[in-house]
């Protein structure tokens, strides 16, 4: 960008891997945008991608992203829209090669420069790091990583906006990253477009808050919004949120005209508190945002202004997301009908547990829920109603174990209950539940100086 624009529009296109396939296309065609930001990596997602890469070394990235790019690349190239996405997962280079291949197929060779951000992968360095005293303690339990070292499948540091900025400055139009923070994918474009310094802490915090608001897609524009949910118009054609930012760090949350959904203070507030910890210190690799300084104002229809955001200097640590093999789990379900639906399901659960016990199977956990009665609100749900009137209840029993045989045997103990347990039971059409491998998550911190982000450019 030669002359700096007064406002820069960053559109949220995907809130997680599996989000609405129409959204990115609608964001780049529904009105003017400068950047399209797509977040693919939930904590759980890294584990899934790692599983895929362990089966096939050319995979390990969000394949949906490549299909999305095939659909939007002609528009993106024609309009000069830049894209930032952490779709690279645990294999960003393979993801970029796949997008380059698509670009060539679309006749866009030599019209597209891809940026690849890596350096987040610590798997090959773990033993060296541990030997040098980086014990990667679990942030929740305090245990050292050594406890599960032999079962670790992946380890990725969360990178911030800096390598995204570098890729954009070196001319990348589509920046594909590994484990870059969700917020860094929005902050990076704003730092690049406005020339914000990495230590302009209030600006960094503002861009981080902007990223937090749009990183979950339509959750900022009417989706999953409890406030007056019945009056939110046309969610079928919901417009995903767009940050319209100014160089001073203030920004508006908007959406394309003619789209469904709603952008109001109540909905943006809901998204601000989503997955929040201590609001005074929302820590990212780029800085620390203070959410108690955020001011919101409805300045137009579907337009919320965000101002006043203050920040503090970044810490000297990076968060590390580690995936390790835990064991196995399975969930079995049956449905019981009125009368006494809940009592029947409870009786079936007791029988099932007695049988598992008699078989001497070892489980780390057995969890029973009665869907329709207590699965979401626990005992609170049954305080206000007469349980005998519940029309139907799904018995849902899950088990978890290091022992695959125990989980496998559990999956064979559900169906017999249809004929040899309490009456009025149905809903076993799906067949025997399948044991699933559990790849668990181990959050830790590492000294920032131990991680060197790497930026590479690829011409399509």
């Amino acid at each position, binding site marked *: 960008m030669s002359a700096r624009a007064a406002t820069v529009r960053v559109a949220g296109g995907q809130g997680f891997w599996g989000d609405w396939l129409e959204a990115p296309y609608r964001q780049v065609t529904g009105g003017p945008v400068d950047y399209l930001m797509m977040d693919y990596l939930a*904590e*759980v997602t890294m*584990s899934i991608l790692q599983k895929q890469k362990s089966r096939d070394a050319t995979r390990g990235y969000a394949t949906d992203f490549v299909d999305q790019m095939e659909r939007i690349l002609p528009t993106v190239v024609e309009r000069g829209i830049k894209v930032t996405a952490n779709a690279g997962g645990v294999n960003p280079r393979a993801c970029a090669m796949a997008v380059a291949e698509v670009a060539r197929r679309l006749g866009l060779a030599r019209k597209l420069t891809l940026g690849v951000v890596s350096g987040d992968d610590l798997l090959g360095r773990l033993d060296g790091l541990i030997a040098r005293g980086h014990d990667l303690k679990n*942030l*929740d339990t305090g245990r050292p990583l050594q406890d599960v070292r032999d079962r670790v499948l992946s380890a990725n540091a969360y990178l911030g906006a800096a390598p995204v900025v570098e890729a954009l400055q070196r001319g990348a139009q589509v920046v594909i990253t590994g484990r870059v923070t969700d917020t860094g994918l929005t902050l990076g474009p704003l730092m690049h477009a406005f020339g914000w310094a990495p230590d302009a802490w209030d600006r960094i915090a503002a861009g981080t808050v902007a990223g937090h608001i749009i990183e979950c897609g339509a959750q900022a524009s009417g989706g*999953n919004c*409890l*406030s007056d949910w019945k009056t939110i118009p046309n969610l079928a054609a919901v417009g995903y949120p767009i940050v319209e930012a100014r160089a001073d760090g203030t920004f508006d949350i908007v959406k394309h005209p003619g789209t469904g959904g709603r952008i109001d203070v*109540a909905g943006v*507030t*809901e*998204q*601000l*508190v*989503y*997955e*929040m*910890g*201590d*609001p*005074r210190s929302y820590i990212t690799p780029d800085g620390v945002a203070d*959410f*108690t*300084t*955020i*001011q*919101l104002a409805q300045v137009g229809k579907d337009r919320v202004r965000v101002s*006043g955001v203050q920040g503090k200097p970044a810490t000297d640590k990076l968060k590390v997301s580690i995936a390790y093999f*835990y064991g196995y*789990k399975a*969930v079995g379900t049956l449905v019981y009908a009125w009368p006494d639906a809940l009592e029947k399901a409870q009786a079936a659960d007791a029988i099932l547990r007695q049988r598992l016990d008699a078989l001497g199977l070892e489980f780390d*956990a057995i*969890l029973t*829920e009665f*869907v329709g009665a207590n*699965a*979401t*609100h*626990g*005992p*609170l*749900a049954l*305080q*206000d109603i007469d349980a005998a009137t519940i029309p139907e209840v799904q018995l*849902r029993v*899950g*088990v*978890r174990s290091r022992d695959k045989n125990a989980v496998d045997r559990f999956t064979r103990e559900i169906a017999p209950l249809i004929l040899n347990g309490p009456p009025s039971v149905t809903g076993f059409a799906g067949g025997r539940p399948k044991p699933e491998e*559990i*790849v*668990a*998550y181990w*959050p830790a911190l590492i000294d920032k100086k131990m991680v060197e982000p790497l930026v590479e450019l690829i011409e399509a």
Partner: protein
Amino acid sequence: MKRKLVALAHARSGDKGDTANVGLIAKKAKDYPLLVKQVTAARVARHFKGMIRGPVERFELPNLHALNFLLHGALDGGGTISLKTDAQGKVFSTALLRMEIEVKR
């Protein structure tokens, strides 16, 4: 008289590992002090008795007329380990809205 929080507030919740967060937001700014006074961390811990294994922390966001609660040990281990339907703590939000508080007539 007693009123359920659902009449006075809305909420959204999410997860970080085995911790669920609930952001509780006053529908009207004038009701925010009521939430601050009555929806204490101790009260919320009692409300969720039997559903969470760890402590409850509370943070205030007067600028957003919101309180943020961290419910530790709420998700059966969380993430991929959890056997819960609500493994990611998405509906602890409305479970909190069942709580009753005292309001002036």
